[in-house]
């Protein structure tokens, strides 16, 4: 289990707000023999050291940047990304905070205004502190004449295009700078990366679970994929999970399996998926008979 974790993220320690993690980061850099300067992600900040902090660290830093200390601001697990030198604090929290280029699932709330060039602006709930804005012209291939009609309650998969300071964030359903290599499909074809999610069901999940589901080798999704049940799933990093399958029973099964997986170990997940699928398939068969 430990080996599997190391492939993805190198866990270092549990930190509390205010913890000085400079020495841990230095140590980690030394063991991985990297010369590059570490990057700091979420949950870490830098301060220039005061005298008493210098004393507490014991003065064992040989580097030139001893005056800069790295302090944790969140409680969680300090991890290092294996491919680069980014350190951050990993947490499993409930409330989403929008960041640029996040891919999120939103619910259309209402039309706010017209955008002045023939489109309409809609307010979309993305689970963050404030709603986001989406123009129905910011779809792939949308024109004044030919644009999607968004009605309240509609589910969308979109990315956060801009986060203007002091204003609501803007969403977009067109391909962005992080979507390199994805074929550009017109919104009419319903085959694009972003767009309206039709059918299925959506629910809120913790943000840590959402991030975990987005790994390509996520166990619970792989196990479900082996069970010969066709399904579609869409995960927004804002903690929204959308599931669609051929039967409502299967949709509920998949939702339950994903929710259960967050409190189960690897072997338990395999067993849970197997038993869930067997019970549901048996009850479907009994119903049909």
């Amino acid at each position, binding site marked *: *289990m430990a080996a*599997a*974790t190391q492939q993805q993220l190198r*866990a270092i320690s*549990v930190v*509390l*707000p*205010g913890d*000085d993690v400079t020495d841990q980061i230095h140590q980690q850099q030394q063991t991985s023999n990297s010369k590059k300067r570490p990057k700091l992600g979420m*949950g870490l*900040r830098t301060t220039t050291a005061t005298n*008493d*902090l210098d004393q*507490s660290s014991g003065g064992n830093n040989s580097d030139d940047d001893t005056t800069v200390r790295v302090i944790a*601001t*969140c*409680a*969680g*697990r300090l991890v290092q990304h294996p491919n680069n030198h980014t350190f951050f604090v*990993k*947490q*499993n*929290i*409930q*409330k989403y*905070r929008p960041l640029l280029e996040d891919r999120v699932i939103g619910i259309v709330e209402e039309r706010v205004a017209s955008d002045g060039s023939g489109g309409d602006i809609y307010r979309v709930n993305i689970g963050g*502190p*404030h709603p986001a804005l989406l123009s129905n012209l910011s779809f792939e291939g949308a024109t004044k004449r030919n644009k999607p009609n968004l009605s309240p309650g509609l589910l969308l998969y979109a990315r956060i295009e801009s986060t203007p*300071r*002091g204003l609501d964030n803007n969403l977009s359903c067109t391909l962005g700078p992080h979507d390199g290599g994805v074929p550009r499909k017109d919104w009419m074809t319903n085959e694009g990366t972003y767009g309206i999610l039709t059918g299925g069901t959506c629910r809120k999940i913790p943000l*840590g*679970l959402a991030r*975990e589901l987005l*790994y390509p*080798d*996520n*166990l619970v999704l792989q196990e479900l994929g082996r069970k010969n049940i066709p399904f579609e799933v869409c995960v927004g990093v804002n903690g929204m999970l959308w599931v669609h399958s051929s039967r409502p029973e299967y949709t509920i099964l998949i939702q339950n399996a994903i929710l259960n*997986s*967050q*409190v*189960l*170990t*690897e072997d338990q997940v395999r067993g849970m998926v197997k038993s869930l699928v067997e019970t549901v398939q048996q009850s479907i068969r009994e119903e049909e008979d």
Partner: protein
Amino acid sequence: MAGSNSNTNKRTLRPDGRPSQGNTLRPLACELSCTHRADGSALWKAGLTHVLAAVYGPIAPLVIAKENPNQGMVSVVIKMSDQGQQQQSNNQTLEYGQFLHDVLTACIDVSKFPRCVMEVVLQVIQSDGSMLACLLHAAVAALMDAGIDLLYMPVATTCLVVLPSSLDGTKKKKSRILLDPTSAEEFEDDDCSSVVVLVNEKNNPDAILGSHTFGGGVTLEDLLACVQVASKACHAIPAFFRLAMEQKVTRESQTLWSR
């Protein structure tokens, strides 16, 4: 004091059975993520004082006009265990709330949450002295559970200062300092004792982030003595926070993050 034989024995024990020498804290307990709807929550127990804290946020303020485009705001709501008590101690609740608001605003990295409010709701379940410290610890635990960025971790210490005149039969001139008093101790000599709450920072135990005094007030000498007690005692709470958080993270790393 019932019998003269047990007199000496009783003097070394405090009403709840702690030794009067050595300034001990009451047993602590903490449960994180205990309510379902809140973004972060914690149940904090110090002896018989139990507080349930829930953090909602960052959320948009109810009145849009109150948004601050530069920094986040903190709102603190304190609810007492029963309605009668609530009416009676309304002033005190407001006083607690204002103090907690000031301390938390200083400790939360408000620059990261423009236009938002962090709402802290504190429900007192049982109250048995050292209320303010317990409220603060519950709030901090819930904020950590909600993943809100904190610049500093505040740690509160409650000291009961009993003036020398109230001690029957002793001729000592120094006043007595009791750490983490129960409500029985707080109300025992209401006239000649005061409660000092000092808030320290975890990494810098000699510095005081905030202080609050209930009762008649204390002399400078007593206050300095309290500061010394506080800087010694404030290591226990972060250690306990760490235990609680480690337990939560370990559970997650065995299941959610094991893959």
